[in-house]
């Protein structure tokens, strides 16, 4: 793929992360403020609350989407940093494939848990 498309995706995922991560952080840390609006997240990092969210399709979908965009944004950024050292074409190809492989492994690992919990 042309680098301009990768860069444009970097911008798009950046905006998506700003939205999704904001939801994630507010749920996890601003429970007192959410309480003022009548939303009860019941101590979000606790086991019961976390499992309660895991078995809801909306939350599982939201977290899988967050994982996908975060992995793309992080690994594409890391690749950009490495490629700035102007390595040879072979090294560049190796770096690219190692990063793609790592991203796929991390995505499968991160998706397995909510999917397994959803399946019961």
């Amino acid at each position, binding site marked *: 793929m042309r680098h301009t498309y990768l860069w444009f995706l970097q*911008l798009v995922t*950046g*905006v998506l*992360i*700003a939205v999704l*991560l904001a939801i994630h*952080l507010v749920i996890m840390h601003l429970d007192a403020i959410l309480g003022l609006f009548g939303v009860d997240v019941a101590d979000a*990092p*606790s*086991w019961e609350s*976390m499992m309660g969210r895991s078995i809801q399709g909306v939350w599982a979908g939201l977290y899988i989407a967050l994982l996908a965009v*975060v992995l793309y944004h*992080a690994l594409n*950024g*890391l690749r950009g*940093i490495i490629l700035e*050292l102007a390595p040879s074409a072979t090294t560049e190809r190796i770096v690219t494939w190692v990063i793609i492989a790592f991203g796929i492994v*991390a995505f499968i*690992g*991160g998706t*397995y*848990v909510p999917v397994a919990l959803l399946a019961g």
Partner: protein
Amino acid sequence: MKQIQPRQNYLGPGGWVWAGKYKLERYLYLLHRITGLGILFFLLIHLCMTTIFRLQGQDVWQATIALLQNPWFKIGEYLVCVAFVYHALNGLRLILQELGFAMGRPTPPVYPYKDALRKKRPWTITLVAVIIILALVFFYDFIVGGW
């Protein structure tokens, strides 16, 4: 005829930590990269915790949550939080400017010239001020003890 030296201002990997006489935006870019790498490091730990540890059941999960109450982890959490805020807001600035917003109107090149960087500078400085204020607010919340 004077020979043009290629990549005269190329700093190499040294430029990843020190940008010499370059201006503010270059240092914001350096911080953007450092915070990005820091968040990536945090992401790996976070993913390990939320996948491997979670599969081992309730006890391991609760022990991990209890471990995170450690003051050193609180400091780490604070750093990650500030890095997030910085990376998000500076990234927003980069996206807006990449797409051509907040650059001011084009003006004829009459002396004294006003280059694009200087036209964008007020926004940039406002942004830095917002980030510093947020960092102080989070410092109060995470380190001092909060509300």
